[in-house]
């Protein structure tokens, strides 16, 4: 599953399609509050684009774009953004994830602060879900153990 495919059609179609999938995922994340979608759905689409890259270009090439270390780092960063905005609201003297209080540090009216707050939370959720999706697929497709050289990948399948 993690070997690069030899078919030039699949490689070329994936290479052309992946930037558009990622752009569409960013659109879904950004427009989450007035169209279907949101942080989780956009993150899933963004993760699916990386999964498509791993499927078509192989494990070795995918590790140069998004390695396991980077996926763990991105999931932690996404959770940090999400909970950081919530805790910032808590520190400013309101409830957890009550974005109206952010107007004092963003210098905007509370309605705009609520819109910006939910946007920030959705960006955090999107990054986290993307990294966790990719990490789950990474673990499953390599059988739980990530080989160092990738030479013995063919023997893992029974």
């Amino acid at each position, binding site marked *: *599953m993690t*070997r690069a*495919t030899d078919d030039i059609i*699949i490689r070329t179609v*994936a290479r052309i*399609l992946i930037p558009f*999938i990622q752009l*569409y995922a960013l659109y*879904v994340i950004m427009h989450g509050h007035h*169209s*279907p*979608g949101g942080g989780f*759905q956009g993150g899933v*689409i963004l993760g*699916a684009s990386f*999964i*498509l890259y791993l*499927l*078509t270009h192989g494990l070795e090439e995918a590790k140069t774009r998004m390695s396991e270390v980077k996926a763990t780092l991105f999931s932690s960063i996404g959770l940090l953004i999400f909970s950081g905005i919530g805790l910032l609201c808590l520190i400013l003297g309101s409830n957890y994830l009550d974005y109206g209080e952010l107007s004092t540090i963003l210098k905007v009216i509370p309605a705009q602060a609520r819109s910006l707050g939910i946007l920030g939370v959705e960006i955090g959720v999107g990054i986290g879900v993307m990294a966790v999706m990719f990490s789950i697929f990474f673990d499953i497709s390599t059988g739980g153990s990530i080989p160092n050289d990738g030479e013995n990948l063919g023997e893992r*399948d029974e």
Partner: protein
Amino acid sequence: MNSFFLFQGMGLFALVLLCLYRGAFGPGVLNRIAGICAIGTKTLVVLLLMGFIYDRVEMFVDISMVYAFLNFIGTITAAKYLERKGELP
């Protein structure tokens, strides 16, 4: 005009049943994969027709695009799994 889209959707649904037969009883795995992929394509068009019926095309276009992406990735995954299996000694 709504009934036109409705009957169009019903016709596509009948075609989905035909593809489902091919996916369930089809001889061989490749026929099953092709049947499921065709079901995905027809579902995409049915979603767009639903958008026309409910007068919210811009919302259903988003959903059907996601459906197309995920259908593409799922088909490639299934095909690649079979390619891997075929090489075993």
